[in-house]
């Protein structure tokens, strides 16, 4: 790590750290419906929404109704995303006249965006109309993020309430998290991003005449648009010269803002946040990384506040931070080291005052190594999945970090809402293990942890490794799974493992060489994303309902403290034990063997 990188990362995290308390407090006030000024300003509009919906925001729901309502609401989103893609050619705001999207790709994208995964099998700038981007995809960027927040808040209420049969009103929770948290921040961030050069318009794509002409080989196609091949199976090409460059346009900044704030990660264009129109400067990059972490980090404080003891929130925050830092450092270090095979070709990979050095394949000049590897670590510990560099071209250990970050279950800060609720599930398992060791009934935040909670926690935690490893195993066993791989050897296996880890954890980033826009991957990954999202959500809401119904146990001398260093270590150990034991064998077949091959030869 260069001194400039260390300074940059330090300042970045200090700024986040000072934001956690005020913003976490704000979110707690919003979700508890306290009459702070934004809620007073928005009260009339908020009231109108409830009136139109025919709901009383003060009426409370039990966990089953809360869960059903949330899933129905998300299912409507899936239908809308699917329909808008299948009909876009006949709808307005499609200046490029993009055709309707295929059925399997539309299904995949619909599930991908309602589950906050935002895995993309398609190329945005050549597939999706502006209307589809806005009214289908961006809406789900908001709604999936709001859905994550409300589940987290419901679980926190489960701890905070006692002898209660309800966990909140899902309509009020969704409305408030959108109106007072996601929307204002998005407007602010979108405008800051436009100032940096992110485009925001509804114009058709802009043709420009470049300074120099480009001569290239263009693949010939037949009348049906299929590539022509010669007798040896190689594509037939013709030499062409052009001086035209077509620049993509569209409402990108508005989408970019919620893409980061909601830890969604679905890019307007194919190259995502590596594209200069989505992320044009070092400042826009800083803002985007800040936006990804702001809500997940601050929700730890919201949790502590609503549960009545902010030390509990800081303990969870500390466990997350301690897990994050070494993995992030490993990624930055590995990328700065570069590729020994490239060094052999007489290429200079040493960082200096005039060049970033390191492994620059798949990275942008304005970000260099530090801001690329940091982005990769941030986007995979949270369930964001936006990328500003191509993870597929990372060094083996640099690529292991994003992969392992996801496989930890997106609990290190994690997605908006999902991070804190998934981590609290690990906390429940942690106190259970500790309870077994000392022979006492486990308690967490004054609630007895009993058989039902442990059963539901096990379901919530174990579904992810099950679907990720099963999906990977199926894909490497069948021809249509293996055909998608772009790189030879162990790296090809890593591409498949990465795809299923990303889908199962609702992350959405990729080792992007994989050609996943095929019926097998569209449907397979679609199912994995769906199970990886809603199975844990139902289990978490069940725990919330069960905890809310319990009586509060008074603190005694024998109560295990859940805010000291011991608890933090216990929580880290639980996360690592589950993550490491489940995935290290698979990692050994991919990035680890690749690392040994790269440096051993």
């Amino acid at each position: 790590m260069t001194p400039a990188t260390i300074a940059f990362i330090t300042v970045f995290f200090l700024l986040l750290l000072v934001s956690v308390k005020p913003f976490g407090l704000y979110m707690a006030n919003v979700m508890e419906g306290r009459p702070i000024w934004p809620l007073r300003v928005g009260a009339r509009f908020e009231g109108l929404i409830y009136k139109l919906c025919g709901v009383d925001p003060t009426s409370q729901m039990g966990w089953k109704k809360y869960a059903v309502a949330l899933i129905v609401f998300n299912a409507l989103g899936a239908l809308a995303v699917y329909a808008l893609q299948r009909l876009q050619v006949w709808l307005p705001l499609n200046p490029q006249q993009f055709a309707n999207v295929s059925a399997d790709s539309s299904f995949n994208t619909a599930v991908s965006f309602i589950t906050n995964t935002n895995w993309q099998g398609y190329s945005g700038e050549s597939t999706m109309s502006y209307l589809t981007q806005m009214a289908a995809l961006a809406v789900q960027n908001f709604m999936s993020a709001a859905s994550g927040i409300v589940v987290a808040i419901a679980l926190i209420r489960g701890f905070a309430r006692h002898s209660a049969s309800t966990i909140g009103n899902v309509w009020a929770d969704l409305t408030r998290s959108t109106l007072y948290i996601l929307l204002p921040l998005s407007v602010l961030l979108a405008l800051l991003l436009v100032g940096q050069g992110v485009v925001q318009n509804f114009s058709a794509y802009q043709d420009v005449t470049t300074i120099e002409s480009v001569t290239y080989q263009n693949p010939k196609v037949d009348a049906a648009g299929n590539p022509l091949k010669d007798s040896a199976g190689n594509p037939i090409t013709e030499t062409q010269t052009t001086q035209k460059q077509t620049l993509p346009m569209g409402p990108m900044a508005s989408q970019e803002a919620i893409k980061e704030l909601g830890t969604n990660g679905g890019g307007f264009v194919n190259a995502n946040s590596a594209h200069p129109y989505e992320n044009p400067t070092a400042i826009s990059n800083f803002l985007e990384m800040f936006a990804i972490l702001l809500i997940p980090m601050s929700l730890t404080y919201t949790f502590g506040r609503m549960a009545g003891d902010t030390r509990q929130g800081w303990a969870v925050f500390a466990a997350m931070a301690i897990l994050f830092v070494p993995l992030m450092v490993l990624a930055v270090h590995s990328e700065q080291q570069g590729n020994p095979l490239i060094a052999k070709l007489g290429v200079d990979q040493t960082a200096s005052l005039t060049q970033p050095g390191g492994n620059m394949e798949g990275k942008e000049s304005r970000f260099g190594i530090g801001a690329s590897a940091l982005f990769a670590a941030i986007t995979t510990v949270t369930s964001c999945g936006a990328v500003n560099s191509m993870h597929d071209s990372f060094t083996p250990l640099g690529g292991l970090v994003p992969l392992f970050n996801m496989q930890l279950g997106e609990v290190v800060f994690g997605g908006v809402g999902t991070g804190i609720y998934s981590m609290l599930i690990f906390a429940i398992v942690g106190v259970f293990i500790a309870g077994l060791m000392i022979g006492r009934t486990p308690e967490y935040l004054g609630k007895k942890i009993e058989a039902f909670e442990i059963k539901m926690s096990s379901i919530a935690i174990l579904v992810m490794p099950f679907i990720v490893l099963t999906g990977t195993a199926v894909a490497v066993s069948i021809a249509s799974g293996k055909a998608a791989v772009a790189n030879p050897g162990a790296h090809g296996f890593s591409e498949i493992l990465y795809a299923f880890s990303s889908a199962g954890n609702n992350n959405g980033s990729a080792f992007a060489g994989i050609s996943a826009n095929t019926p097998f991957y569209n449907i397979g990954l679609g199912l994995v994303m769906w199970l990886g999202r809603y199975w844990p959500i139902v289990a978490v809401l069940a725990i919330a309902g069960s905890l809310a119904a319990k009586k509060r146990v008074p603190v005694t001398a024998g109560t295990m403290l859940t805010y000291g260093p011991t608890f933090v270590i216990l929580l880290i150990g639980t996360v690592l034990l589950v993550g490491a034991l489940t995935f290290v064998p698979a990692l050994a077949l991919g990035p680890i063997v690749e690392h040994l091959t790269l440096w051993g030869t």
Partner: protein
Amino acid sequence: MNTIIRPAITLFLIMTLLTGIVYPFAVTGIAQLLFPAQAAGSLVMAGGQPVGSSVIGQSFSDPKYFWSRPSATSPQPYNAIASSGSNQGPLNPALADAIKTRVEALKAADPANTLPVPVDLVTASASGLDPEISIAAANYQAARVARVRGLPPEEVQALIGSHARGRLFGLLGEPRINVLELNMALDILPAHSAATLRGSRFARSP
């Protein structure tokens, strides 16, 4: 079920209208007022015609220009509607082959150059549209550009110096230089004094 279905549908429609229509149009309206040039794509004009965007790279392969970074977009490099990296893994033989070819092309265009080849000049960017190269990559090419254009090397070096961007506050971004702006400045160089150049918009007559 009516206590779930009706609110779900109504709330979904309201939120679609609010976050899917009102929000992007409102942001567009404010952005057009505050930052019209950026919102429209930061276009670079020459003679009244758009010749590119200051944030999107272009392909340069003539020895008289500074070359951009390699681009993996298809079918042609710097295809701005098909942004993509190479996605080649570190052990992929195709990656080493591609880098070898690029190093050879640089050496063939400037056989006398003994400087080390900067890594960013022979590796494909993430987007395939990287508008910039490192200062080292510009320095590496300065002698070639000066020789082909018949310019004194100091003049080309001075141009690099005046277009170079450093780290903001010493923290943000890497030392780099915008290739399109640099090459456009080169094209008008013989008629002007290098000392007064700061992009074509500020060029003065001698």
